[in-house]
């Protein structure tokens, strides 16, 4: 390694990360295809109907589930409704500013929503109270607490964990006793970023900063694809996408084991 080629300041990130990537290395010592440590804790809040705190590396997200009674969508009068939102408060990063949701926050919420909705994780047919009039609306609120990359996977995992042990608050609305929210098997997503020709899974904040392109795919318990999102303005080849999906199937099945069984 020729010192004069070596990147200068550690904050001149792109050169430094590209240099490491050429040697198959990442800035935190991980392999390209390696996730950081994942920690999941559920039922951590009292007022929420369901909750979970998930950490992937230093990134931390708290998902809260609230249920309210409202009107169903016109095209599905006997099914519950789902609404997902993400807050990126200034607490989580020096780069987050207060204000209405940015396009990034909206994209994040919609991709997580798609993962939950398309995997049919929540048994929406069981959330009908009076067809055409009253159904349960499930609100997933993702609250980013500490940002160090890969909000997509952290948020979907937090939402899945929070829903897994959530409760229908019948008592509060005079509809009898509380009951568990009926759910099937949770979706798990994997996110990759590409810089130069290196593709790495579970990007940290530095890697996201220099990334040209990003790819997230949500996988169900059978290894089938339920949602995908390519992000940022760079490009992927077809081979790269196919390979990402295969790696995602592998990672998703391992991460799903961390969610464990419904209690």
């Amino acid at each position, binding site marked *: 390694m020729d*010192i004069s080629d070596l990147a*200068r*300041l550690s904050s*001149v990130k792109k050169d430094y990360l590209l240099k490491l990537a050429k040697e198959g290395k990442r800035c935190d010592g991980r392999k390209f295809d390696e996730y950081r440590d994942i920690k999941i804790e559920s039922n951590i809040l009292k007022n929420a109907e369901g909750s979970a705190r998930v950490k992937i590396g230093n990134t931390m997200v708290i998902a809260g589930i609230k249920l309210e009674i409202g009107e169903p969508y016109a095209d599905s009068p006997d099914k519950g409704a789902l609404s997902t939102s993400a807050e990126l408060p200034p607490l989580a990063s020096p780069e987050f500013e207060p204000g209405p949701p940015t396009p990034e926050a909206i994209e994040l919420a919609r991709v997580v929503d798609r993962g939950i909705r398309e995997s049919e994780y929540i048994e929406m047919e069981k959330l009908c109270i009076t067809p055409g009039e009253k159904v349960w609306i499930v609100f997933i609120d993702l609250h980013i607490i500490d940002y160090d990359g890969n909000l997509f996977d952290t948020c979907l995992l937090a939402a899945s964990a929070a829903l897994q042990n959530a409760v229908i608050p019948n008592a509060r609305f005079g509809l009898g006793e509380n009951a568990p929210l009926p759910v099937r098997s949770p979706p798990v997503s994997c996110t990759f970023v590409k810089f130069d020709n290196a593709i790495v899974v579970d990007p940290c904040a530095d890697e996201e900063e220099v990334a040209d392109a990003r790819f997230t795919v949500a996988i169900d318990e059978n290894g089938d694809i339920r949602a995908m999102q390519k992000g940022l303005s760079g490009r992927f080849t077809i081979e790269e996408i196919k390979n990402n999906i295969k790696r995602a199937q592998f990672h998703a099945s391992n991460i799903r084991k961390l969610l464990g069984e419904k209690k």
Partner: protein
Amino acid sequence: MIRKIVLPGSLVGDKSKLPGKGTFREGENIYSSRLGILEEKGKYVNVIPLSGVYIPNVGDTIIGVVEEVYRNGWIIDIKSPYSAFLSIENSPWEMGYGETSKYLKEKDIIIGIISNIDEAKNIDVSMKDKQCRKIEDGIVIDIQPSKVPRVIGKKGSMLSTIKRYTGCWIFVGQNGRIWLKGEDEKVNLAVEAIKKIEKEAHTFGLTERIIKMLGG
């Protein structure tokens, strides 16, 4: 010797003492304004901060990164809430107005000295000292500014120790940036030692542990 941690508002001295760094006088008493370690030097009571941003002082040598190039100078990021300005007059080069980009471009790294700070904390940097230069090789790493004194050590002892065992050239900026040059493996070892000092800065027996880690 017990190293006492004090908190903002902790009583650290009475009228017989003088308020030093990280302290303030209220009435007859002296209180700490920082979370840090109490140090008494003669009549002065100081608090060595355990955290916090770099606050520049005139005379500090710093490692800065060029943020913007103007026709009459450069804006330098000195890892502080305040950017600093390096004017053509304070640079080591002779040049005409508008020729600044020939000498320093955005993202170039320099060693400079804080030459002036006014009341509004507008900061001037100068490169007229002989240790000042543009950094063209080696690597530069970041540590917390509050740990710089420990990396240097009493009378430079810790820094000498690292240099001795790794044979590296090491320059420590007061603002928490460090420039290293040497053989790859030795540079990596030096960086590991510095990161360890950053983590364990105020523990006892650190010097021995660092020497052991460096192979002594």
